[in-house]
């Protein structure tokens, strides 16, 4: 029997990454938002945003709130556009679906996913997974001549939050997954506040500030020294950049002005000084904005401490980065600087980067979708009609209550005593 084509849909809170197995076209990235432009006097649904010309004071309606799908009306409008002849031009009833859902998706939201997939779009079969769980199928950890590692930690820094996801033998160890409530959305909003207080009022300009963030911000490996540099006067300040804000007539997107360029009449300049590195710094130090959660380095340690003791070394040696938040320049160097002093001295630490961290999960999903392995993982429409949502959850392994119980049965309890245990073990070794 010929297998039905599979739509791969990485349903991010900021952008949807989508494609079909039978098409040779590369991934299509679609904003997961209904964007209203005052200047254009139009609302753009998802993919239509490509046509937007006036990026001032855009209004965003996002289907996701705090990383979870809450607005199904908006989501359906955007998905409808993607399946229509304007993007994929595909009959959903003739295809299968591989879609991503957020980590620890709520059971009542998962149910609606199933309903939409089978009752509204009538897909033949579907597989729902978290982005990190797809990574073992991809090439993020690939090394020449070696299979993917048994144990890995995937750091997914997304739009709504950042997750640390340990995976063993292709299965996520949910009891050791950690979340930091810092994502791209928060960082952009934080930058917006700083700019609005210090220079221009840009509180309505989320889109423009996001571009500034993506072009100017970097992760500092010497925060203290960089702060001092930013205090120095202009001739010695090597960090400050002059960002030319878009005026929507001559330039539609802003750009960083070259240091020797002559000023043009009427252009508006945004000076990016310590904002350049203090924004991404929040991910490593959420306490700075009053969020009492550990920074990325410490959170990775928290996660590893919850894993079986004898495998710690394997996890330290296989840390992979996905999600747009990991794409700031200097991210890997800083993370290494955070991890090295926290890891046992004899441990090797290796961090795997992706060429394109935003589409890494999509490409991994695509790799899975083109193999026959997907058939065994997916739930068919007939199975759903008989077994309902509960059946889907069991088969996908995303019934967290059940997964948690199974994990505990497999591994020794490692929640609180993990640290105590590690101490006794190392003490014994020393003796």
């Amino acid at each position, binding site marked *: 029997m010929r297998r039905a084509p599979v739509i791969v849909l990485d349903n991010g809170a900021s952008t949807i990454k989508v494609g079909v197995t039978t098409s040779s076209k590369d991934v299509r990235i679609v904003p997961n938002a209904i964007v*209203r432009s005052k200047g254009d006097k139009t609302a753009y649904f998802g993919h239509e945003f490509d046509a937007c010309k006036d990026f001032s004071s855009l209004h*965003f*309606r*996002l289907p996701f*709130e*705090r990383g*979870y799908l*809450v*607005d*199904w*009306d*908006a989501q359906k*409008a955007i998905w409808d556009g993607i*399946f*229509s*002849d*304007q993007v994929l031009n*595909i*009959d*959903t*009833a003739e295809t299968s679906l591989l879609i991503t859902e957020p980590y*620890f998706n*709520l*059971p*009542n939201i998962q149910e*609606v996913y199933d*309903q*939409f997939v089978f*009752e*509204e779009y009538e897909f033949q079969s579907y597989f729902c997974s978290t982005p990190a769980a797809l990574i073992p199928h991809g090439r993020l950890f690939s090394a020449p001549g070696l299979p993917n590692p048994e144990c890995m930690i995937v750091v997914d820094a997304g739009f709504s939050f950042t*997750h640390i996801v340990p995976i063993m033998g292709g299965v996520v160890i949910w009891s050791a997954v*950690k*979340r*930091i*409530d810092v994502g791209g*959305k*928060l960082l952009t*909003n934080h930058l917006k*506040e700083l700019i609005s*207080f210090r220079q221009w009022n840009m509180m309505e300009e*989320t889109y423009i500030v996001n571009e500034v963030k993506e072009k100017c911000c970097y992760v500092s490996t010497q925060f203290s020294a960089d702060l001092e540099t930013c*205090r120095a006067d202009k001739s010695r300040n090597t960090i400050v950049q002059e960002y030319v804000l878009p005026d929507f007539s001559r330039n539609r997107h802003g750009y960083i002005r070259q240091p020797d360029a002559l000023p043009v009449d009427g252009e508006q300049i945004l000076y990016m000084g*310590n*904002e350049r590195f*203090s924004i991404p710094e929040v991910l490593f*130090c*959420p*306490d*700075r*904005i*009053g*969020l009492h959660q*550990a*920074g990325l380095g*410490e959170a990775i340690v*928290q996660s590893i401490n919850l894993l079986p003791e004898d495998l710690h070394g394997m996890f330290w040696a296989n840390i992979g980065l996905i999600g747009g938040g990991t794409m700031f320049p200097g991210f890997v160097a800083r993370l290494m600087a955070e991890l090295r002093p926290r890891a046992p001295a004899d441990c090797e630490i290796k961090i795997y980067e992706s060429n394109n961290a935003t589409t890494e999960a999509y490409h991994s999903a695509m790799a899975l979708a083109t193999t026959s392995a997907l058939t065994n993982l997916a739930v068919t429409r007939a199975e759903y009609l008989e077994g309902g949502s509960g059946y889907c959850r069991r088969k996908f392994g995303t019934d*967290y*209550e059940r997964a*948690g119980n199974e*994990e505990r049965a497999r591994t020794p309890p490692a929640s609180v005593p993990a640290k105590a245990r590690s101490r006794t073990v190392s003490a014994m070794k020393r003796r």
Partner: protein
Amino acid sequence: MPRRQPIRRAQESQPLDAETIAKRTKRHLDELERSNYAEPSGSYHGMDEDDQAGKSAKGRARQTVSDKRQLSGPSAKRKKANMNIRTAILYRKNFATLIEESGLTNISSSIPTYLTAAAAPPKEPTRPLCTVCGYWGNYKCKKCAMPFCGLDCRSVHDETRCERRVI
């Protein structure tokens, strides 16, 4: 002649209690999750096409965008959506409500869920930054406990941030 300081002792002698500061921080964190500036946090309407006309809550509550789109393609609508789908589209719930309805708060905390996955607080406190210029914030405002770096930033703080921020 000696320099005279204006007497403001009555105002300054009341530092903000920890609870108020925690509340302020929480409000600020909620603000950082907003999609748009000009709407109350947590509310996700917007998208009312006729901004001036459709302001009444009643008119907006049942308006949907997904069924008004003119799209063509092989999977363009064949039949009417069933009850489940209609309910999901019409009755939007915010995340706090969904958490409540999910029943996660009742199950054992040894089972990993959204609620248990948050990273634990850091072991070491972080050094605060000046809320005005972003340099180290070694001093705190007496009235509202916001950090600043020196006298210059303090005066900016007093003029602009402080009054607005104190609850």
